[in-house]
Structures are given as C-alpha cells and as structure tokens.
C-alpha cells in the first residue's frame, strides 16, 4: 500500500524519538540497578521495553505504507548522574515525546490516515501513563526529599 509521504516523514520522526528514548530509559534502568534501586530499575526497564514495542509498531506501519523505517538516526540522550536527576531528565524527555506524538497525530488526521492516527493514539495513552508516574516520582522527591525517596526504592 502506497503511503502518504507527509505521514511517512511524521512516523519516521516519531520512530527516531522512540529509538532515543529506548536507549535513555535502558541505560537509566541499569544505572538504578547498579546502585541497588531495584524498584526503579524494574519500572524504568519496563518503560524501555514498552518504547521498543511502540517502535516495532511504527516500523511495521511504515513498511506497510511502502516506506523505509530509519533505524539509523538517533537523538541526543539526556543521562543523569544520580537517580533524582535521571528521573527528571526522563520526565522531560517523555513530555517532549508526547508533544511530538500529538503533532504527528494531527498530521495523520489532516492526511486522512486514520489507521496510523489510531496507532499513535494508543501509543500516546501509554506514554501519558508513564509520564504521570514520572511526574509523581519528581514531586515525591520534592516533598519527602531525595534520601527518603530513595530509601523506598531499594
């Protein structure tokens, strides 16, 4: 099936962001693990795998639309040096991802690609859930303090 080039470009852009987020989350997860914060490791590792599943869906969709998924492009990673900062940076990245997915949804809408639109909307829903979790962690750190917070993450 021949896809619309505007939609394909929008999907590839989201793919690049996904590939970037997979890596940032994965590295952060294993840094948490290395310091013994098992709970953070589990949560962030799972988020990374979820990102990979999203990337998979986008790759398959691009192929179906006769496009070429670009797995070579990768954005800048924002890697923190300590757990609190790492969560904040993940939160910022996730927020940016969400904004870009919303824009891509608008592109699909205006190009009448309702299947791609639906796929992105499903991805968006999961993103918002993880963003909510990240928001909660950041405000927890602000209210109970980093040390208290980290004690609960062992």
């Amino acid at each position: 099936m021949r896809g619309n080039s505007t939609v394909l470009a929008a999907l590839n852009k989201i793919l690049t962001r996904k590939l970037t987020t997979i890596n940032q989350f994965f590295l952060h997860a294993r840094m948490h693990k290395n310091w013994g914060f098992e709970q953070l490791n589990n949560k962030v590792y799972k988020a990374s795998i979820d990102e990979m599943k999203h990337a998979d869906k986008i790759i398959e969709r691009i192929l179906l639309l006769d496009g070429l998924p670009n797995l070579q492009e990768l954005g800048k990673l924002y890697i923190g040096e300590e757990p609190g900062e790492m969560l904040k940076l993940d939160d910022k990245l996730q927020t940016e991802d969400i904004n870009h997915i919303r824009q891509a949804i608008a592109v699909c809408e205006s190009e009448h690609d309702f299947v791609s639109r639906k796929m992105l909307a499903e991805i968006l829903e999961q993103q918002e859930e993880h963003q909510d979790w990240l928001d909660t962690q950041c405000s927890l750190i602000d209210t109970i303090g980093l040390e208290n917070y980290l004690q609960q993450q062992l």
Partner: protein
Amino acid sequence: MPPKFENAGVRSMYVCLCKGITDKQIVKAVENGAVSVRELRKQFGLGNQCGKCTCMARGVLNEALENTSVAATPAQKPEIFIPGKTANAATNATHNAIHNAAHNVTQSYFTLTSN
C-alpha cells in the same frame, strides 16, 4: 564556605556521553579559563565522536561564562583594601560567582532538541 558543587543542586548530567563529560566539568573548565567549545574539545575530546553534544555544550559554556563574568566583576575591585585579606575575599567572591554560575546553569540551558 559555599556549598560544594556536588551538593549545590546543579543539574548533574552528562553533556557529552561519548567521552563521559558532565556539565559540572564544563563549568569547572570555564572557571579555569575555557571560553570556547573548541577549548572543551581540546581538553576533553568533547564532541569528537558522535558530535551530538556540541549544541548543548555551547549552551552550558555560554551560561557559565555569562554567570561567572557578571558575578565575578565586583571581586575584581574590592571597595576597602585590606592587605592580606583581599586575596581571600576575592577568592571567596570568585567561588560564589562560580557556584552561582553552576547553579543558574540548572535552569535554562536544558532544552530538548525538537527534531
């Protein structure tokens, strides 16, 4: 004594991941006289591998430069000259300036690229 960099609420993150260079290292380099990305490149090899960090490094560098130069100016001309004490006062002022610089960097240089 100004708080140590490590505890000052500085955004502690890696600017250049390929070479493992943090924002704090860049602020320190500015403290030691670095004024351009080229010098950071020479000193750390920053940006020599994938090059994705140069934009952010420039942001960190510029803000550190701005903050140190603005804040450090009074240190250069103390109002009362007390022999023996001046050096110390100036050093403290510079420390504060650099500390402020590190602190201010936290807020604004961090903008994610939007591509």
